């Protein structure tokens, strides 16, 4: 059974580093793992030290990675529609529809939807290829919000299907019995979203929030926790990253360390039932070599 993990959090807290480290951790356990970046500002290439693109790339025998490019996915989708269209429409209306499709490429929501589509596709198509799939998501509220999308879309599509079925029935009464491609497509989408909901709400899917031991990331984490619990998407783990090591004696840092520990105890007090992982800051910049140090800390 495929295990899916989502990593979210404020920008710059170390989501990419930690999700990459977790991916390595699973490969060390001998599990075939896919690391997926959904952040438009892709950085797993920098962390892994290998150029990853919008196609699945093998990093080690057990680890593959991919950086989803929402723009490319949207273009592929719209070009496919255009091809379908050329086959069935007259050139006169074609230009008008083309205009609409061109506008759709830059419409708000397009990239979120194409990103979400690609995520579902990966989870569905490769569910038997990988044992673990790790999603390094864009800063909080962006991709995590996508996780609640299936529920909304399922309802919306169910409504549309009902309406369309009524139309097909009325047409049949008038003797216009024919295959309705719209109904077929609506049903197809509906089925895909049902599948996505199953995967996202399955026991094997978990959400991990990454934060730094500071006030602002804490507030952001609280917000994300609230939103996700309202959406019935429980978070399994909070990772507190880049904690200052306690052995510094410099008075400037001593003060900071105290403040950080306050935040850490607050997190522990509020989220008693969650797994809280603490990662101390290391004395190196993040790259493939220093990543190994973190893997053992997880």
């Amino acid at each position, binding site marked *: 059974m495929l295990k899916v993990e989502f990593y979210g959090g404020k920008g710059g807290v170390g989501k990419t580093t930690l999700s990459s480290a977790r991916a390595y951790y699973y490969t060390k356990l001998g599990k075939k793992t896919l690391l997926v970046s959904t952040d438009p500002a892709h950085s797993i290439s920098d962390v892994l030290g290998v150029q990853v693109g919008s196609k699945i790339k093998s990093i080690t025998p057990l680890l593959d990675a991919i950086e989803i490019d929402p723009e490319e996915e*949207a273009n592929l989708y719209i070009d496919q529609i255009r091809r379908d269209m050329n086959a069935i429409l007259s050139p006169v209306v074609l230009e008008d529809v083309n205009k609409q499709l061109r506008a*759709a490429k830059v*419409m708000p*929501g397009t990239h979120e*939807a*194409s990103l979400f589509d690609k995520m579902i596709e990966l989870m569905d198509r490769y569910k038997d290829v990988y044992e673990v799939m790790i999603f390094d998501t864009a800063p909080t509220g962006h991709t995590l919000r996508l996780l609640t999308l299936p529920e909304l879309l399922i309802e919306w599509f169910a409504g549309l299907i009902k309406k369309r079925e009524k*139309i097909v029935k009325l047409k049949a009464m008038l003797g216009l019995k024919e295959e309705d491609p719209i109904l077929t497509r*609506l049903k197809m989408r509906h089925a895909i979203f049902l599948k996505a909901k199953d995967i996202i709400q399955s026991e094997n899917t978990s959400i991990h929030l990454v934060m730094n031991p500071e006030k602002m990331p804490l507030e952001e984490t609280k917000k994300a926790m609230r939103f996700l619990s309202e959406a019935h998407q429980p978070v399994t783990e909070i990772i507190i990253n880049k904690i200052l090591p306690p052995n510094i004696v410099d008075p400037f840092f001593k003060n900071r360390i105290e403040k950080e520990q306050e935040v850490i105890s607050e997190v522990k007090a509020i989220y008693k039932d969650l797994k809280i992982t603490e990662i101390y800051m290391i004395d190196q910049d993040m790259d493939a070599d220093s990543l190994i140090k973190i893997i053992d800390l997880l």
Partner: protein
Amino acid sequence: MKFLDNIVLFFTGALSFNRKAYALIDKDLRQEEDNFLLAARADLLGLNFPTMYYMLELIPYMVEEEEAWIKRMVKRKSIWEERFSDLDIDP
């Protein structure tokens, strides 16, 4: 010959009891199609739904309905007239 045709037409008209029923269904159908179009292509009216992206793939199949809808909207003279015509649906 034309005279004969007219006689045939007269009797088909006079004896077609289904006509009214068909017109009723036709009206229903158009109403449903309008409703569907509104739900599916609300972006044409400037309403942004998260489903808009997924509706794109329906556009090629909805062009016909869309055109019929626009024609109907352009042709309508008054909403009252339309409402009153509900009471008498003979075309």
